[in-house]
């Protein structure tokens, strides 16, 4: 039991590290695709935390929530990639620094 408690702490720390990498990725990257991938990393770090906590609490709630997050992430991917493709077709770039026609 002690052994697994230590392990769960490590998983949570790992998920925190992944989440932070995701935030940094969103803030630093300029391509919409890379930003989107960083967001997916953040969602998956939450999944890791959920599953680790589910193990700690000895229930399955966290695992079920992780599934829900996956489903919603898939829906987001479908819409998000469509928007990115549409933008690329229309404006010929997905570099967020070059998308600045809206200002004021």
């Amino acid at each position: 039991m002690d052994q697994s408690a230590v392990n769960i702490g490590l998983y949570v720390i790992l998920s925190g590290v992944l989440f932070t990498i995701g935030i940094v990725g969103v803030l630093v990257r300029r391509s919409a695709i890379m930003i989107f991938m960083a967001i997916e990393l953040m969602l998956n770090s939450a999944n890791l935390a959920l599953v680790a906590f589910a193990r700690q609490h000895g229930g399955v709630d966290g695992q079920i929530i992780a599934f829900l997050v996956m489903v919603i992430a898939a829906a987001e991917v479908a819409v998000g990639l469509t928007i990115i493709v549409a933008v690329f077709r229309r404006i010929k770039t997905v570099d967020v620094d070059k998308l600045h026609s809206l200002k004021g």
Partner: protein
Amino acid sequence: MDVPTIESLNLIAALPTMIVAVGAGVILLIELFLPKEERHWLAILSVVVIAVGLWLTFWDGGRTDAFGGMYVADGFTRFVNIVALGTAFFAILMAYDYNRRRGITRAEFYPLLLFSTSGAMLMGAAGDLVIVFIALELLSIPLYIMTGIRRDDPIAQESALKYFLLGAFASAFLIYGIALTYGVIGSTSLDAVLGAVTSQGLTGNPLLLLGAGLMIVGLGFKVAAVPFHMWTPDVYQGAPTPVTAFMSVAAKVGGFGALLRVLVGAFQDLAGAPRAGGWSLTVWAVAAATMILGNLVALAQRDIKRMLAYSSIAHAGYILMAVIAAGEGVEAGAGAALFYLMAYMFTNLGAFAIVVAVEKDDGSGTDLDSFAGVGRSNLWLGLAMALFMLSLTGIPPLVGFFGKFYIFKAAIDAGLVWLAVIGAVTSVISAFYYVRVIVKMFLEEGTGEAKVPWALALAIGMLALGVLITGLLPAGALDMAEGVILALAP
């Protein structure tokens, strides 16, 4: 653990939300068999679905739970439902003619609007953090699509991309906050969180505070609170105007519904003004920054959609003030927030309806100069805009005044005197940019003109009446809003 039966799920309680979502799906199916020139039936069917949803909302009283406590049907839910459905109704009236003028022929428009509405309704009904997350996505994903529904328009595409990236970023914060809360408490039920925080003395737990903070970030994005507001002006400007109108109110209703449920219904004991590190101090700073920045930047805007975007940021600040008051234990806080949301629905939708009328077929004509002289050539339209602008400023006896009054009163009762002072001062500043629109419409010469087809005229008329009636007789709506408080924090 009991295996739930159909009876124990108590689906009846969740019927208003379900009928809207199911109705949207049915309309999508009907569209398949409808010839292109008969598409206006989709709008009419959507209004029917909304009417059924409203009728079911008024059905019975008291608190009941559906889906084992995940869906809470109480006065709060009912109020959020009414505002969300009303917003959808007026947005459809605005879009009815606008879509044809601007060549938005895609039949998915109305079903997407209904899906998004059901998301907003679900956010106010959330009894579980997981529902907050799912409802947020149900609200947001159709909005991303509707923002970019004009696929040949580069501006709309750009704003859809910005909205999507920042919205997805925000939901990642929300779900991580939920994961941390689940880790500490072992459950995602709001009641369980509330109970555990009190009974286990978790008020200083760093992981729980971090989780609550991340959730505030995620929901703060949705309601456009500073510093999470960057997307608002760009998206408001780039989206089709009826969509902007819809999202400006529906996203706020959903976002604040969930914020009140989470912060007051689950994390109330974490608020703690005297104890440093509670959420009320953080939200205090966010509210102050939101009111100040929103109102000051709005002064400099030349495009009315951008101006209304910053004004909507500013109004988020006022409602946040009520959220803090509710968190501090002032019972009128939640009621004041809800009343303000209803006032904001009438007023802000009205302002956007006028923008729809003045906007030209090619999408131009949203700059302030296009409004010059509109009040002279079209007196009633000008008077309606004056009404909405004065209500947004908060001039008595319009509904916007009572909204602000109840919020300031709740804030002062909660000891948030400085925040109320900031609110009052920024309200005065806001008069400059709101009144400027009226001056433009009546006192300046111009070639501005407006097209008001019957559906739009109906929307403007009903909204203007709403502003006047709830302003002159605020008691009924306020009673309803105050009835929710007991339900919120059991």
